């Protein structure tokens, strides 16, 4: 079996943005909306990077290059479906309805960044690689037991496929026929480890065979391909067809996080090669060539994006801080006696302005 043939790359736009497939499931309006979102998200991502460099936010994991996958996936879901993503999946979350300032709040280390406003049906971003895949299985399984048409989607990276939890999740979902979609964002790198050191297989999609579930490989930089594929997949899964593994082949354009220096481990040339097919430029070329959007319209969108992102920066910066002692409020439903006295101690120290931590260390 040749996995590259058995799991052919689904593409609608080629790397230069030429239409090479069927785009009958997306309207021009939808494409304009996608372009607008991709622009806003790219703007946000770059602004966040700069904010970190200015010391205004902490560690930030940029998603640039992966917006097509994340937005394409999120756009294919119903509001009731669950999204279980990881630290890099803010593009999907923001598209789903998480306010634009949340990723910033999160990198500022604000505890409220874990509480997305209702009705966004999504778990807090996951840091432990692959752990959320099992949560998605449980959420999907619950929906099935309850007879709800809800499905659950897990987003994770290529590195995550090496974890035991990935395997256990896909096997369990397959046995339970849980309505879950497993979307791997194969961005070619797990921090400094390239895909070919992560696995010796040609594709991630072929892992579906191990579980006797459907596996698909889609160009993750092609938002039309991702969106249309996901639409179909979500429909099948919702109808009870069992779980599906989708490999979205994409590329992490930037560093792993603001704490990472990719020049230590990857060659500039590779970067250039992948940069060419990146999702925003690709969509832009197609929309221009097909006259769905003009340069002027695009510029207007870019201006709007800047404004929205600046507003998000303001919103994040002016978000009221949480009192330190509030950490005790969300450990248990009600605070046990020992924790209560610890909370009192901390609150007293805060009142007295006896600042803790490093400063005294």
């Amino acid at each position, binding site marked *: 079996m040749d996995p590259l043939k058995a799991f052919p790359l689904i593409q609608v736009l080629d790397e230069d943005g030429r239409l090479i497939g069927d785009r009958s499931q997306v309207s021009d309006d939808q494409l304009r909306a996608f372009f607008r979102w991709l622009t806003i998200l790219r703007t946000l991502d770059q602004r966040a990077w700069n904010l970190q460099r200015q010391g205004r936010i902490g560690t930030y994991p940029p998603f640039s290059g992966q917006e097509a996958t994340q937005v394409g996936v999120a756009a294919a879901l119903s509001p009731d479906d*669950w999204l*279980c993503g990881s630290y890099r999946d803010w593009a999907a979350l923001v598209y789903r309805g998480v306010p634009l300032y949340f990723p910033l709040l999160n990198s500022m280390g604000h*505890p*409220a*960044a*874990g*509480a*997305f406003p209702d009705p966004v049906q999504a*778990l*807090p971003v996951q840091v*432990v690689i692959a*752990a959320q*895949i*099992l*949560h*998605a*299985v*449980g*959420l*999907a*399984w*619950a*929906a099935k*037991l*309850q007879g709800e048409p809800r499905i*659950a989607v897990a987003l994770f990276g290529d590195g995550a496929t090496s974890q*035991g*939890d990935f395997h*256990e*999740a896909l*096997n*369990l979902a397959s*046995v339970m026929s849980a309505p879950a979609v497993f979307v791997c964002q194969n961005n070619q790198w797990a921090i400094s480890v390239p895909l070919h050191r992560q696995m010796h297989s040609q594709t991630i999609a072929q892992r579906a065979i191990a579980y006797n579930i459907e596996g698909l490989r889609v160009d993750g930089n092609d938002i039309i391909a991702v969106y249309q594929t996901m639409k179909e997949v979500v429909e099948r899964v919702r109808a009870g067809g069992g779980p599906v593994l989708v490999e979205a082949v994409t590329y992490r354009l930037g560093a792993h996080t603001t704490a990472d220096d990719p020049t230590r481990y990857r060659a500039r040339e590779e970067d250039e090669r992948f940069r060419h097919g990146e999702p925003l430029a690709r969509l832009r070329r197609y929309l221009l060539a097909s006259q769905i959007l003009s340069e002027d319209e695009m510029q207007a969108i870019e201006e709007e994006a800047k404004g929205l992102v600046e507003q998000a920066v303001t919103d994040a910066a002016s978000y009221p801080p949480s009192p330190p002692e509030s*950490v005790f*409020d*969300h*450990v*248990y*439903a009600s605070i*046990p*006696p*020992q*924790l209560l006295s610890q909370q009192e101690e901390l609150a007293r120290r805060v009142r007295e302005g006896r600042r803790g931590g490093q400063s005294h260390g």
Partner: protein
Amino acid sequence: MANITMIQAINQALDLALSADDRVMVLGEDVGPNGGVFRATEGLYEKYGGQRVVDTPLAESAIIGSAVGLALGGMRPVAEIQFLGFIFEAMDQMSTQASRLRFRSYGRYHVPLVVRAPYGGGVRTPEIHSDSLEALFSHLPGLKVVTPSTPYDAKGLLLASISDPDPVLFLEPMRLYRAMRQEVPDSWYEVPLGSARVVRPGDDVSVIAYGPMVPVAEAAAETLLQSDISVEVIDVRTLNPLDLETLSASVAKTGRAVIVHEAQRTGGLGAEIAASLQERAFLSLEAPIMRVTGYDTPFPVPSVEDWWLPDADRVADAVNFVLHY
């Protein structure tokens, strides 16, 4: 009321919970047609069907991880880990997931999940099957840890755990499953989490135990009575959060304490109890707080385990030590 064993009491609790609340479900290895390797889930598959009493694949991380998702999705999962020693496979889902989701989501989500697991020695299992790991879990904020020592408490604590909005690790002392019978109400009742029980009042020394060591402590107390030593035996019941009020009140009264557990001594829960009690009752203490525990080796093979496990004789020695300090 029926005169039943602990395993029957657990079975009853599960049965009641399944029948009272559609959201309750039981999942784990061999919990279905087999009724669990100890028969804790006997008859439940037949009564509630394979959707609510589910044999999972052999994958503990999947059991706990998917149960977290089930709980978030509105179910009330009661997961079984076949033997506590195998929970290591699910350690991340226990530690950074189930017990932290409330915290991580700043209160937006919570995980009403019960994880049941048989533990402890005395039944000559193969290795890894008899480990007592309660100390590890009592160090994890966000998780509650509970262990009964009687059929009555087993049912009442399990029902309270299922009602609890937070994740609870419910540890079942294997060797007490069938060791005694007790009158247990047929209907739903709860023994509140977070409260210790004075098993037997006494004046000279407090012996603090839990789970499988409670009968051992009682046996020691009985023997010591013959030497006119009056032992107060306390069953901790909830290992996290600890009921330090009850414990320190006892020690304030007796001035002496011996803590008994099966787990290895170093870093065991006895350390936390001793450390907390000397903080709270320092001026009442007439002797150091002593610990009678498993030795600092892995749980041994069956031919050695009787020697390794704390027994009434060792407890009595420790009591005599603190009395004559």
